[in-house]
């Protein structure tokens, strides 16, 4: 292959927000002159849905709902048919990232990139070089990551709970077993509404435990729901499991709960007509004899502002009429920085935030009774014998 095609983006992180322009170059590298029938660049955004195998039989009838959902499909021509000289040729391009204007029912707008098990949201930049009749067209692609503009930070929603033999519900396997050890554990999450770029924090304290503890772990779980109003499949799978306590930890000491949310496998909690992506946190305490006690916290993930942006937003809300100069002085920010923030993050009310807000309301009710059972080992208050995933 004498000809090489690559896409190089200007932004190293490859993270873009709606309304921004994806800029970069397409590099054509060749030893000889390349004759082509046109060079095109396509941005394609898709949601791929997949049904879990155990549900396939039931849901084959709803096959229409698992067709990939197209989010964006923009096409531009980089070069008309012609010749490209030998050597390295860089063709710069700019492509706007904008949601489709003509909205069909059920179109969710531009969603954040997300890699899950049953739901995948991906944006690909594809470059293709059509060539003469006998040659195959040359293709290359490059993934870009779409992130929401920052949503307004939701108020902190701390949650605390106590775990002791009285509060838990033994799973069926453990019911017949020997008596449960005596323990009293206190756990606290600083907020169930978490910003994606901030670590999830809290603390856990073992006040009393009659048997030695082997490990205390945090399990981040995604709950992906596919389907439509008539029926759906709901699957909870583990994203990551982080140990926060190793060995028989000291009693009556606050052990910090600290988890950095993984970048690719999380996204803001999303609800659309066809699918839902939700997250939960499990705190698991494993005793020396493989007893496992878990506590489940549904959490809401949002793309939040940085502290500075939040400050600016608050100021805009409080005094909308202030001039840029006056506001800059009030906030002790350089005017250029302020302008950038205003232009990039606060042009108008962020549309995806609505979904998030509705979600919070829906979740609130759930939080009141945290001993609700969820399938797949992520159930809260379960006592499972040697079966932690």
């Amino acid at each position: 292959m004498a000809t090489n095609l690559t896409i190089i983006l200007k932004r190293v992180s490859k993270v873009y927000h709606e309304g921004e322009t994806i800029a970069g170059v397409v590099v054509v590298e060749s030893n000889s002159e390349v004759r082509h029938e046109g060079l095109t660049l396509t941005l394609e955004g898709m949601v791929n849905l997949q049904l879990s195998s155990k549900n396939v039989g039931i849901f084959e009838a709803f096959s229409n709902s698992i067709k990939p959902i197209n989010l964006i499909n923009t096409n531009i021509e980089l070069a008309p048919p012609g010749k490209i000289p030998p050597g390295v040729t860089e063709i710069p391009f700019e492509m706007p990232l904008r949601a489709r204007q003509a909205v069909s029912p059920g179109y969710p707008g531009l969603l954040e990139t997300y890699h899950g098990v049953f739901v995948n949201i991906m944006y690909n930049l594809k470059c293709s070089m059509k060539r003469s009749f006998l040659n195959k067209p040359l293709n290359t692609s490059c993934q870009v990551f779409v992130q929401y503009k920052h949503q307004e930070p939701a108020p902190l929603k701390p949650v605390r709970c106590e775990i002791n033999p009285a509060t838990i519900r033994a799973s069926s396997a453990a019911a017949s077993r020997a008596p449960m050890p005596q323990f009293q554990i206190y756990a606290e999450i600083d907020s169930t509404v978490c910003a994606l770029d901030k670590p999830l924090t809290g603390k856990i304290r073992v006040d009393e435990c009659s048997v030695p503890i082997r490990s205390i772990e945090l399990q981040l779980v995604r709950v992906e729901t596919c389907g439509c109003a008539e029926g759906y499949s709901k699957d909870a799978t583990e994203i990551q499991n982080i140990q926060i306590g190793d060995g028989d930890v000291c009693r009556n000491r606050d052990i910090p709960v600290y988890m950095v949310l993984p970048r690719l496998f999380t996204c803001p909690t999303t609800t659309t007509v066809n699918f839902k992506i939700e997250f939960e946190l499990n705190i698991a305490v494993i005793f020396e004899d493989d007893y496992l006690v878990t506590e489940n916290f549904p959490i809401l993930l949002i793309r939040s502002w940085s502290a500075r942006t939040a400050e600016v937003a608050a100021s805009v809300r409080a005094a909308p009429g202030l001039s840029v100069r006056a506001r800059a002085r009030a906030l002790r920010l350089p005017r250029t920085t302020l302008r950038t923030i205003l232009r990039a993050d606060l042009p108008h009310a962020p549309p995806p935030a609505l979904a998030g807000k509705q979600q919070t309301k829906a979740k609130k009710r759930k939080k009141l009774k945290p001993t609700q059972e969820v399938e797949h080992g992520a159930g809260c208050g379960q006592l499972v014998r040697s079966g932690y995933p």
Partner: protein
Amino acid sequence: MPVYEWTSAKKTCMKHVSPSFEVTSYPLKINTISIKQSSSISIVDHINKWSSGFEEVDPLLRFERMNLDEILDTNPLEVVQIEGINYSKAWSAKRVAILNKYTTGEKLTIVSSYLPGGEKALIRQVSNLNEKVKHRLEQLDYFDESSVRKTMGLSQQEFVTNINMLNDEIKKAWGSEQRVKAFKIGIQCSKLLSDISVMQFYPSKFILITDILDTFGTLVFDRLKEKSFGLNNSKNIHNIDPKSVPESAKETCQNWMYKMASIRELLPRLYMEMALLKCYVFISKEEIKLAISRLSIMIRGIGNSLVSLYLRVYLCYTASKLLGKESEVYFYDNLKEFLEEYQQIFQTSMRKKYESQLLTQDKYLNLYVPAIDWLLLGTLNSKKCKSDLFDKLLLKCEQIENNELFLCCLVSSFDTTSVKNQAARIMEVVQSKAEKMVMINEILTSLGEHLCKGENFRQNASESLIQTWWKIASSLKSTHHFLQVLEPWLQFACTHLSTQHVNVILRGTIRYMVKCGKPVDEFSGNFQFVMKRMLRSIPDVEELFLMDAFMPLVELVQTSSARTMIVKTVLSIFFSRYTSVQMEDPIVISSVMTLCWILHDSINAVTVEDESKLCGELINKFIQAVTFQDDLERQLNFYVECRSSFIKLDTVLITLVHAVNSLAVRASTPRGKWLQRACAAYCFVTVPSLHCTLTKTQLYLLSGQVALLNNCIGQAEANFKALIGLIPDIPDYILEDGQKKLTHVKVGALLSDFLSTLLLLPDNVDGNCKAYILSGFIKTMERIHWKRTEPLYYTTLLHTLDLLCEMTQETYAHHIESVLSNDKLYGSDTEFIAVLEKYATNICQELLVVLKALGDNKETKKQYNLALELFWRVVRRGDLKARPMMSLAGNLWMLSQKIQDSNNKFAKAIMSSLQKDSNPNFRHLLQKLEEGVKNL
């Protein structure tokens, strides 16, 4: 050959007065300044002094230095020079100390998938597609948990090798763009630190593995730096500005952080974050401090106290590397965190673990010591007012249970003043828990060391301290511990309390040692240390021997070898510290005498030469120091006693002979006559028991001279006779310091000294032979078959000739008062002179034979010199009026002119002095010589 009759010339008057004036200092004046070897010069210093001439350093020392240099070389930019302390230096010192201290003979285990050896071969024939997929998946899994190999039964050395291999593996993987592999190796290594199956080795394992993590952290940091600022930049942690870091480098850094944050297990995650801590610089400087505080809280999640404490140590170490002085607050934070978790150390589960590994509790607790010390080091530096901090921590210490470990670290880490001020309080704490405490010996030892360092402690306070201490110490179960504790406290007692107190302690020690039921020899090493300390610290060394408990204490040790060792230390320190030159106190003398006996008795046939030399030196010092002032008789008795006691050591006997000789000279009072005789007899009897003939002859000569000086003619004669009898036995070579040395120079000097002494010796009138001793000497000379051409031989002949000529004079050149020399005795009796001249003729004849022999051997130079020497003697001492003398002189001169040497200064000097002389004989001679030369 013609025989030349020798005729000596009579010199009319030799009295000529040289100009003189009185001086106060002259080279032979006895130097009264006694030079003491200062005790501080240890044997190592001596060795260093000796080896300083060589360029080569001791190879082991060189490695040590190289290591230090390396540390200083590799990161000069990272070393933060702050006032007070250099953490990287402190760390490297600590590192070496830990590696040396915590070793094990147990078998170790490594779990890793990156070590070569035991590599599973995954290549196999694949047939269908299903197999192929399976195979591919297996290969992908290759580096996953499933293929982790456990290497068991490693010795410590193998373990270290493996760890070093992993270190290289990281570098290799990094170099070959396999950065994730490097990351994984890092994780696996830090996982090894959760394994406490061989606890004793844990601190060393920690050091080895953190080295790997440091390597990894540096690799990541360097790459990010290169990404940000290009290959050759002089940036370091302290001058990187996050704002100037390009987006791509920041992105890479973020990726590392995300990767690190997703490590499942807590311990490796924490270790890796610490290793990558410095990379936060590329994102934001503030982040580092936040991360450190967060990490110090997150460590709470580690349940095992040993693992978590060392984790804190690594955190503080990385913090100190990054922040220098600013990091000290984190040291304190972590110390506080540790104190909160303090009781975890004493959990029953831990107890079961260390007991199953056969560790005693104090050994187990000792594993924590270096780590706590490190935390305290930083904490101490952060505080201006150390005594306040000490107060606070001590209060904490009083409150918690099982406080010995923390107390021990506190006492050993803090400065002397703070500890000293609280000494009473510390003692109280210790006393209240004395029965249960484990590390009591270490606490007391370091407290004692502090007290020794401190000055001007109040008298009554130190008394009560010592009393409390004694109560605790005397109830210690282990004798080792007791002696260990005794060492510094005894010094404290010596320097701060009266001798009575020390004596009481010593008595107590004896009681303890007797009571403990074991032979003291087992502890002779510790015992020796105690002795050393005491001897060095007591203000007046002599006082020790005045205590009634000291000697029994020394004699507590039963085995002769151990006892000898102790005696040797006692004596050598005693003499190095002993300030006055003389030893007078009879108690001290008898005590030291006893010690010397012990020392002497230890010498037997198999003792090494150096050993006996050292003993000899010590005993010599003793003999030289002892004095009974004017009681010379007692002094002699003492020497007699010494001789009977130390008969095995030649050097001691030599010293004794010298000492007795000087005693004899001192005994000049009229009633000292018999003492002088006794001394002479002593010497005469002592000398034969020596081994070395040369020394014997020298001592005979000396003793004879002294006897002569004291007018003990008979004794002098006996000595000289013995000397002459020994001359044939003097060997050509003697062994000195393992080297063969020629004796002829010494013998020459000895003989000429002897001959000049003979001039003074009055002849034995009873004998029928004139010049009895001299004739004996000449006969002996004839009997020895010396080689004729030997310079020693003919020089001795020349000297004898000189003596013979001198003896013919009417008045001798020098006299000893009260000794009647031959000139007075014979009054130039013709018979006597005839005898002498006969000898002279014979000797002259012999010399001519020698001249001929030299000529035959073609040793022209020697011949020429001898001819001139003889010529000179003939001219000066012979009577030239006699014909034979004149012709002999002429012939000798002719001979010398014939074989004239290029260097004829000697001949010219002789000539010129002859020409100046106005003696008519010389004129005649000169005339003749000139004629002779013309005829030539």
